[in-house]
C-alpha cells in the first residue's frame, strides 16, 4: 500500500457482494462510513463504533469482521459481503433470513444484519456447528429487543434446514 497522507482522499476498490465498487476515502475513513454513506449500502448498521455491539459485522474475504473497526483503505482489493448480499434474489429470503422471520428472531432489526452475517459465516465454515458453538458466536452480538431466545431458535432451525438441503443435494 502506498504511503498515505492525512486529509488526502484515495480511491478504494473492492468487491461488494460480488460486484466491483470504488469509493473515495481519507486514510481515517471507516469502512462503515464508506459502505453506508459512500456506497449507499445502509443495511450495515453502526451501534457503538467500538467493536462491542456487533451490529456492523460484515464479511471480509470470507471472515466476519467489525466494519466499525476497519479503515476503508484496509479492504482495498478484498471481497466484502454485507446483509444486502444474503438474499438469493430480490424478494426471496435466504434460509437464514426466513428462519429469523418465522421465529420472530428480530424486533427493531437494528442488530439483525450483523447477526445474520456472523451466522452466515459460521454455517458456511461449520455447517454442523452445535448449539454451544452457535451461542458462542452470538455472544459477540448485543440485541436489546428479543431476549435472544428467538434468535437461538432461528439459528438452530436455519442450520437444520441448510443441512437437510445439503443432504438432499448429495443424495440427489
Amino acid at each position, binding site marked *: 500500500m502506498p504511503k498515505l497522507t492525512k486529509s488526502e482522499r484515495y480511491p478504494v476498490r473492492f468487491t461488494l457482494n460480488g460486484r466491483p465498487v470504488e469509493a473515495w476515502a481519507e486514510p481515517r475513513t471507516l469502512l462503515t462510513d464508506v459502505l453506508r454513506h459512500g456506497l449507499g449500502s445502509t443495511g450495515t448498521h*453502526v451501534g457503538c463504533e*467500538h467493536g462491542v455491539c456487533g451490529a456492523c459485522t460484515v464479511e471480509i474475504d470470507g471472515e466476519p469482521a467489525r466494519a466499525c473497526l476497519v479503515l476503508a483503505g484496509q479492504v482495498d482489493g478484498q471481497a466484502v459481503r454485507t446483509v444486502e448480499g444474503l438474499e438469493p434474489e430480490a424478494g426471496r429470503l435466504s434460509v437464514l433470513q426466513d428462519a429469523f422471520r418465522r421465529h420472530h428472531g428480530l*424486533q427493531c432489526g*437494528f442488530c439483525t444484519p450483523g447477526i445474520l452475517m456472523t451466522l452466515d459465516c459460521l454455517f458456511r465454515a461449520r455447517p454442523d456447528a452445535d448449539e454451544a458453538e452457535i451461542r458462542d458466536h452470538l455472544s459477540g452480538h448485543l*440485541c*436489546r429487543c428479543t431476549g435472544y431466545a428467538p434468535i437461538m431458535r432461528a439459528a438452530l432451525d436455519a442450520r437444520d434446514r441448510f443441512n437437510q438441503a445439503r443432504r438432499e443435494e448429495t443424495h440427489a
Partner: protein
Amino acid sequence: MTAIPPSGGWTGRPVPRVEDAALLTGRGRYVDDLPIAPGTLHAAVLRSPHAHAMIRRVDTSAALALPGVACVLTADEVRRLSRAMTVGVKADVEAWPIAVDRVRYVGEPVAVVVAADRYVAEDAIDLIEVGYDILPVVVDPRTAAEPDAPTLHPSLGSNVINERLFRYGEPDAAFEASSRRVAVTVSYPRNSGTPIETYGVIASYDPGEDAYDVTANFQGPFSIHAVVARALNVPGNRMRLRTPPDSGGSFGIKQGVFPYMILMALAARLADRPVKWIEDRLEHLSASVSATNRVTTLEAAVEADGRVTALRWDQLEDCGAHLRAPEPATLYRMHGNMTGAYAIRHVAIRNRIVLTNKTPTGLNRGFGGPQMYFALERLMQRIAIELGLDPLDVIRRNLVPAGSFPYRTATGALLDSGDYQAALTRAIDQGGLAGLIETRRAARAEGRLYGIGYTAAVEPSVSNMGYITAVLSPAARRKAGPKNGAQATATIAIDPLGAVSVKVASVPQGQGHRTVLAQVVADALGLEPGAIRVLADVDTARDAWSIASGNYSSRFAPAVAGATKLAADRIAEKLKRVAAGQLNVAAGEVDLANGRAQARGNPENAVSFARVAAAAHWAPGTLPDGVDQTIRETVFWTPEQLIAPDDEDAVNSSLCHGFIFDFCSVEVDRLTGAVRIDKYVTMHDCGRILHPGMVAGQVTGGFAHAVGAALLEEYAYGPDGSFLSGTLADYLIPTVMEVAEPVILHYESPSPFTPLGAKGVGEGNCMSTPVCLANAVADACDFDDVTLPLVPAHLADRLAAEEKPSRETPTRTAVPAKPGERKLTGEGSALVAAPRQAVWDMLLDPKTLEAVIPGAHGVRKVSSTRFLADVTLGVGPVKGRYRAEIELSDLDEPGAVTLSGGTDGALGFGRGSGRITLAETAPDRTTVHYAYEAVIGGKVASVGGRLLDGAARVVIGQFFKSLAAHAGGGKGNGSGLLARLRRLLGRGA
C-alpha cells in the same frame, strides 16, 4: 383476496410480520439511512468533561478557522434564538438544551460544531477551548438532599426541587393499631434500556416562513412537541416533526432526543443549511437519558398473619442535573399503584425530587415500576421472614380479592379486571414450583447457595396524561386547569381501487404494530391482512396526532389498536350500508367477508369489496342517505376512566392493569459470586392477546432488560461526578450467555375498558423481574438486604465477609478502590548514571523535560517553579492532546521535590501530585524514587477506565527510563522488558 380467514379471525394469530422482509435484507429505513438534502451539514457536540463547573470562557476561533467548519452554536446563540424548556414543576429554575454559564453533568453540551462532514466537525470540537472553574460535586441523592449540600441551581436554594406529602385512608391509625411493623430501605441504581441505534436528528429552518422541519428518531409522547415548539419560539404548526419509518429500539430512551431536536434546529438556523447529527455511543451512554435512581424507605403495618394494613412510603427520586419534561413523571407514573397487586387501604407517601450532578433522566422501560416494586416486593419477602411465614402466603393473603373488579386502589387507580388468585395458582401448577422447592432442598443439603424468589405485580398501561399533575398541589392544579386522558388516533383510507391503508401515530421501534393493525382491520373489513397497508411513523404536519401519540406506557395494544378497531368498524358500517343498496338487502344483513360484501345466509348475493369501497370515489351520487363518504375515517379515542387527579389526590394513573406473578430459582456460586438463573416462570394477565408471537417477544425482551438491570447494568459515577460507563465494555448489557429463557404463562382477563380487551404487556417484566431475582438471591444467600446490580464481585465479597466474620479484610493484590472511583496511585524507582545535583538540574530544565516526558511537544518554564507543556498521550483507544501545568513545591534541593499539576484536553482532565526523592546510592549513581497519586476524569475516564492504571505506570516508567538514558546511560531499576511487563500487569515496580 382469496385467503379464507381462520375461524375467529386474524386477530390473535401468530401471522408473520410484514416488517421483517425489509429489515432482514438491509432495506430498513432508520434515521441515518434516510436521504438528505444536497448540502446537508453534519454536527458534533462538545460536551463537558466536568460534573460541575462554571464556564469561564468558550473560545471557538480556532474551530471556526478550520476549513469545512460552517458555524459553532454556543449558549449565547441558543439564548438569543430560543427559550428555556418548560419544566414540569413550579420552580424558579431554567432548563436549556445546552449548558448556560455552568455545566452540571459530565457530557452536558457546551457547543455544537456544524461542518462539511462528521470527521471535520469532530476535529473542530477538539479546537474549542473552554475555561472551567470547577465547583463541588454532589452525586448521591441523599447527600444532595441535605441542607448544606453544594447546590446545582442557586435560584432554587436547594437541590430538592419538589416535595409532596400524600395521605390515603387512615395510615397513622393503622400503624398505631398494627401488631408489627416491617421496613426496608433500598437504593435502586441508574440504568438504561440503551437501544442499539443511538439518537439521530436531521433539521432545517426556513427563514421565510420562520418554520423548522425536524426528522428525529423520537418515540413520543408528542406532548414533547409542544415543549420543542415553545423552546424554538414558534407556533406548533411551524415546528414540523417527522419520524423515520424504522427505529432501532427505544425502550423509552428516545423520548430524550428532544433537547437535541432543539439544538440541531437552532444549528440549522445558524448555518442556514440542513444539519444532521447522529449521536455516538459514548454520547449516548453518558448524556442521552437514563432511568432515575431512587432511595426508598418503605414501612408496613402488619397483622400477625402477614396481612398488610398500611404502607408508609418515603421516596427520594434523583432526576439528575435538570428536571426535563416529562419528569418527574417517573415518580408519579405508579402513583395509583403504590399498593401493587394488594388490597391495602391506608397509605402515606412522601415524595421528594432531588437534583444531582448526573445526566438528566427520562423515559425508560418500566418507568417507575422497577424502582417502586423493588421496594414493595423486597418488603413482602422481609415481612414473611420477620414473621416466620411462607412468602407465598404473605402474597396470597394480600392480593386484591377476585370478584372485586373494577377495583379502586387506595391511591386512586381503577384496576380494570383480573383474578389474581387464579392466575397465581395456575402459575404455581404449570410453572412447577413444587419441583423448584425440592431442588432447593437438595441443593442446600449439599451446601449450595440456592434460593427462590417471588413477585406479584400490577403492570399499568396507557398512561393518563394527567397523572403528572399530581406533583402539583390540588390548589395549583385548579389554577392550571385539569389535565387528563390519553388520546389515541387511527385513520383508515380507501383508495379508488378499493385498497385499504391505515395510518396511526404509534411510532413503533420494532414492536410489529403494522402487522397487528393489518390483522385487526382485516377482520373488520373481511379482507386478508396482506391487503392492508399500515403506516405508523408520524409527520406532525400531515397526520392525525395528539399529545398522547407515540410509543410508551405500553399503549399500543389497548389504545392504538383499539382506536384502529373503532375506525375500521365505523368504515365497515358505512360500507355495509353502501352494499345494502347494491345487494338489495338491509344493511344489518350484510357481512364483509372473504373480500366481498355478501348477504347473510345467501353468499351468492355478493359484490366485491373493491366495488363497494370505490363507490365513494367514482359515483358518490349513488351513496345512500346518511353515508357521506367511505374514503377516509379518522377516529380519536380517549378512555373516559382517565379522569384528572381529584382534590384528595386520588390518581387513576393508567387505564389498564395487567397482572404478573413471577417466581424463579437461582444458584449463587459461593466463590465467584456469579448468579445463575436456574428457572424463571412469569405469569401474565395482559387481557386479550392480539398476536402471541409479539406478546412473547415483549415478555422475553423485557425479561432480558430486567436480567441486565438485576445482574449487570449500572451507570457508574465517580465521587467527582466522572462518568465511568462510557463503552459497552464498561456498561455491560446481557448477551445470549446471560439471558435464560423464561417460562411464559398466560391468564386472559380481557379489559372491559379497551375496544379489543387488550392490555399493555411491554414493561411488566422490567418491573417484576429485578426484584424477583433479588428476592431469590436474598433467599439463596440469607441476605437481609440486596442492592442491584448483583455483580459477582460484590456478591463474592459479601459472601466471603459473612463466611469468615472474624477475618480481617480479604487479602488482595491491590488496594480495593471504592466502587467507581478512578484514582491512580503508584510508585517506583530508577537508577540514573549521574550525580544527584545533575539529576536535580535535569528535572528542573525544560529542555530535558521535553526530551524525557513521553509525548511532550513543548515545555515552557513560566517561573522557577511552574512549567507548561503540550503532551500527546494515548490511553487505550483514546489518543489525545493535553495541556499540562506543572507546579514544583516542597523543594529540598537536591534531595526531594513535589510535582503537582493538572492536565486538560479534549479527551479529559487529570490532577495529581508526586513526590520525587533523589538519593546518591553510589558515586555518580542516583536512585530516583517516585510516588504519585492522580485522579483522572472526562472522556478518558469514561472509555479508558480499565486501562488507566497500566497506562499510567507505563508512561511514568517511560519518563524515568528516558531520564536515565538522557543522563548518559545507567539503568532504571525495573526498566527491562520483564520489569515493564510486571508493571503492565499491575504488580508495581
